[in-house]
């Protein structure tokens, strides 16, 4: 194998970018088929109600209306958790949030469909809603929102303990207790979800949808309609932004499928922006209590972490989210003894689910702000309290996670150097402040969402007689560049140019399964599968060339469409010529490759151990410079330095883009984004009212990539699309403290909160804004497991 890389590691254009800048990319909403009908969904006006009756006779009689349906027409439940899913195609008995779906219409045009919705008469019995964590953790006044909930409205409780908590706290010189709140927020992808379903005359159903997960949608659709998966084809066109909002199979995808079956015609839906806010599945609001014991040198002796998640009206991936609020605390700093208790509460709001960072930004905010408070009490610089207690490479954590490579030290040192943190921190004029925070994240979940022993990602390659290479993979390009990763890797391995490669992705009939674009898994998993497939094909081609030249196979190399022997200039053949010879020798040329995470990275054996393991963790550090107006408390973020350990940048340009996008999204969460409700009604369901950063609020971002060459990553690569979000919120909070000396223990950090804390401080009260308590609910006895902190983790390459 050639050691020098020709494509990997080079900044280059993204695959498909010229279509994107010239308006040629076809998103799901751009698809239009002959005889296509348009769908609209009638939505609940009550946060919680029983449906007594639905009368749709008038709607059915409206000219142009081709079909009307309600929940009884398609009663089987579904969800991203597959058979444990609680999503309904349309509400069956009850609606569980304002915006929940009640009935649907297919008509000749959108206007007629909208008109028809007004003619559907729903008789509701209004029920007592549950609107907060506090309301959901006391015995309910009314009927529980879901039958499966415990103690009224508690969806899931988790209780885990690793090591000796009492002994750990006994060793501590300081025990710090804090309570934090992180408000919910949403993905806000610029593309509104769109789906076209076509049930054709042969009884096969094709669905084009803006989804991050064609595979899980495939399974969910088959399940809902009791159809063999072989009769269903899911195609995910390029997605106009996901961020987790298009991970769940969503009910509108089922609705248009059913309406297409009812009418025998293609049916399309495009959600309005307001409906996207209802579809949601975004960041869970989380209330947290953190108790941490530290020695004088800042080393942590034990951490007790409690989280309460506001889940909204349905389950989504919420069981995994609860675990994720507890799983990764141990990956960043040494925590020898660790306890986690978490609970997800069902409430009458749009369902929360996975958003960039999935369940980890909230605890990361809590841990990093608390660390800042501890550092101050102990008189340690925020840099040192982190640098002196980092987890080490190839060790295990208390909760049995295996760390491979870590570049966090390099990350912290890099942002320190650029920002001059050590000199500037604590020494800037009043109103200016610097804040530091770190984070760590998974490169793909170690386990699939449903238990199976099959590959997580498959890649197939075929070569045509002209030397063109086509790569087939189920992976879904949501803008992160997964198509590009496939092309770069196959180009590198076969020695062809990226332009000679065609990419066919995200089509369940044409492409081998890739589990989907979630959990930052795609570069590592499809990348490894692509290497596997490409190297098989390369061997086949090189065998032919070696025979042709009479040289050993190992002496050959390939680049720029030529296969050659570096030691012998007479041995050289163009790739297309070699393809003709190889096909003559071997028959049709193709290969397959697959990938599943190595067993050594799959974590512990206790119940709940499935959330947190990954082939490789990434690490990030950020320093944020803020300006707080002393009069008005207006908060401006003036500059962000971010360093991210990406393992190896397959294309540094695209990696920087992922890092900058993560930083921006974290900044939005830190400063302004929130999904809040008044009597069940979303307060801000529009792009104007839901505040997100524009060009004006987004400062210059300085990005530094750190490469640690992880043995499990393709060419050493790890993720970049989620981890760099994590340090931003706590870094802003810590910077606000440095600027004006108040602690904002709640996200988002609105000027009103800073203002209140500043005025309180002036009056001699505590200069803090944040929650004061957490609910008292019974947790089950913890599952007690010995801590594996510091034990050696195997260094195992996945290939």
């Amino acid at each position, binding site marked *: 194998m050639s050691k020098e890389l020709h494509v990997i590691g080079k*900044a280059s*254009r*993204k695959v498909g*970018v*010229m*279509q*994107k*800048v*010239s*308006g*040629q*990319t*076809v*998103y799901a*909403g*751009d698809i239009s088929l002959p005889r296509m009908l348009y769908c609209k969904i009638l939505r609940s006006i009550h946060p919680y109600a029983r449906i007594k009756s639905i009368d749709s006779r008038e709607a059915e009689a409206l000219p142009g209306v081709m079909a009307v349906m309600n929940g009884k027409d398609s009663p089987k439940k579904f969800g991203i958790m597959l058979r444990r899913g609680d999503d309904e195609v349309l509400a069956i008995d009850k609606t569980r949030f304002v915006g929940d779906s009640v009935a649907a219409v297919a008509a000749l045009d959108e*206007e007629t469909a909208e008109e028809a919705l007004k003619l559907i008469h729903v008789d509701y019995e209004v029920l007592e809603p549950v609107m907060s964590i506090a309301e959901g953790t006391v015995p309910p006044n009314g009927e529980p929102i879901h039958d499966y909930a415990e103690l009224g409205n508690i969806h899931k409780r988790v209780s885990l303990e690793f090591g000796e908590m009492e002994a750990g706290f006994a060793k501590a010189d300081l025990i710090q207790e804090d309570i934090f709140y992180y408000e919910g927020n949403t*993905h*806000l*992808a*610029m*593309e*509104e979800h769109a789906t076209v379903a076509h049930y054709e005359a042969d009884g096969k159903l094709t669905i084009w949808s803006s989804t991050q997960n064609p595979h899980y949608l495939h399974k969910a659709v088959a399940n809902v309609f009791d159809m063999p998966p072989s009769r269903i084809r899911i195609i995910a066109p*390029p*997605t*106009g*932004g*996901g*961020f987790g909002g298009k991970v769940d199979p969503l009910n509108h995808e089922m609705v248009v499928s059913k309406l297409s079956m009812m009418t025998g015609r293609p049916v399309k839906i495009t959600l*309005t*922006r307001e409906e996207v806010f209802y579809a949601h599945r975004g960041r869970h609001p989380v209330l947290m209590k953190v108790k941490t014991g530290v020695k004088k040198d800042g080393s942590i002796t034990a951490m007790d972490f409690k989280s309460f998640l506001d889940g909204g009206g349905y389950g989504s991936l919420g069981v995994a989210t609860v675990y994720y609020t507890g799983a990764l605390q141990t990956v960043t700093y040494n925590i020898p003894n660790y306890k986690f208790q978490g609970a997800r509460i069902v409430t009458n709001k749009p369902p929360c689910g996975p958003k960039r960072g999935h369940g980890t930004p909230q605890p990361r905010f809590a841990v990093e702000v608390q660390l800042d408070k501890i550092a101050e009490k102990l008189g340690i610089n925020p840099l040192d309290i982190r640098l002196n207690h980092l987890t080490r490479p190839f060790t295990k954590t208390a909760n049995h996670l295996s760390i491979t490579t870590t570049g966090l030290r390099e990350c912290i040192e890099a942002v320190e150097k650029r920002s001059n943190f050590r000199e500037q921190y604590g020494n800037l004029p009043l109103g200016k402040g610097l804040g530091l925070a770190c984070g760590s994240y998974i490169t793909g979940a170690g386990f699939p969402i449903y238990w199976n022993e099959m590959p997580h990602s498959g890649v197939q390659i075929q070569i045509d007689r002209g030397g063109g290479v086509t790569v087939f993979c189920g992976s879904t390009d*949501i*803008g*992160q*560049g997964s198509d590009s990763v496939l092309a770069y890797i196959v180009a590198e391995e076969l020695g062809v140019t990226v332009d000679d490669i065609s990419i066919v992705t995200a089509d369940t009939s044409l492409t081998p399964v890739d589990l989907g674009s979630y959990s930052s898994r795609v570069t590592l998993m499809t990348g490894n599968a692509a290497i596997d497939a490409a190297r098989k094909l390369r061997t086949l081609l090189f065998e032919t060339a070696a025979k042709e030249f009479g040289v050993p196979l190992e002496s050959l190399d390939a680049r720029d469409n030529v296969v050659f022997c570096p030691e012998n200039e007479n041995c050289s053949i163009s790739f297309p010529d070699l393809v003709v010879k190889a096909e003559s020798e071997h028959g049709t040329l193709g290969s397959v490759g697959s990938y599943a995470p190595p067993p050594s990275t799959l974590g512990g054996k206790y119940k709940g151990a499935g959330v947190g393991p990954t082939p490789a963790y990434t690490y990030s550090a950020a320093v944020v410079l803020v300006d707080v107006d002393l009069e008005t408390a207006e908060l401006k973020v003036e500059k962000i330095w971010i360093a991210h350990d990406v393992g190896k940048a397959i294309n540094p*340009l*695209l990696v*920087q*883009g992922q890092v*900058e*996008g*993560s*930083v*921006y*999204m974290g*900044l939005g969460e830190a400063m302004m984004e929130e999904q809040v409700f008044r009597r069940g009604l979303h307060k801000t369901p*529009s*792009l*104007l009212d839901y505040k*997100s950063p*524009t*060009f*004006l609020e*987004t400062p*210059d*971002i300085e*990005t530094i990539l750190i490469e640690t060459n992880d043995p499990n990553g393709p060419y050493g690569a790890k993720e970049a699309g989620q981890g760099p979000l994590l340090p931003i919120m706590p870094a802003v909070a810590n910077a606000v403290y440095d600027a004006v000396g108040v602690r904002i223990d709640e996200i988002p950090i609105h000027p009103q909160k800073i203002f209140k804390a500043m005025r309180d401080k002036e009056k001699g009260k505590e200069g803090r804004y944040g929650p004061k308590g957490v609910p008292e609910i019974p947790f089950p006895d913890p599952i007690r497991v010995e801590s594996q902190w510091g034990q050696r983790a195997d260094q195992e390459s996945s290939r």
Partner: protein
Amino acid sequence: MKTLLKLKVNGEHYETYTSIHKTLLEVLREDLGLTGTRHGCELGECGVCSVLIDGQPKLSCLVLPIEVQEQAITTIEGMATGTRFHPLQEAFADLGAAQCGFCMSGMLLSAKAMLDENPQPTRAQIREELAGNLCRCTGYTKIIEAIEKVVAESNA
């Protein structure tokens, strides 16, 4: 109620008989098949559907086509000349300014209008001029860098 609309888009003349209340965004996408103009809110809040009308960036979701029948409309499909891309399109591709690409049509046209008016904008002016175009992927950083590349090259 329907009406006959006559529109001049990207230098081509179109006639379409369509509902009088349709927005320019809807007519471009649904009647003329110019789906390169995207939509993100239909309420004039995101900038995704921006087109140029007589060179000025306008939100096509807030424009009634009947009012712009005399004016020159430019959509993303008209930004390249044949197969020759506009320097902004090249720079956006070169510097990784497009991720999901959904905001790109509006972003590029707004950037073009800005440079046509002011070929030498400062970074602060770029931020100010484009503040009406939201992007959720890039953190705006690479977009600014791509525009600055075009500005720098136009100086050279």
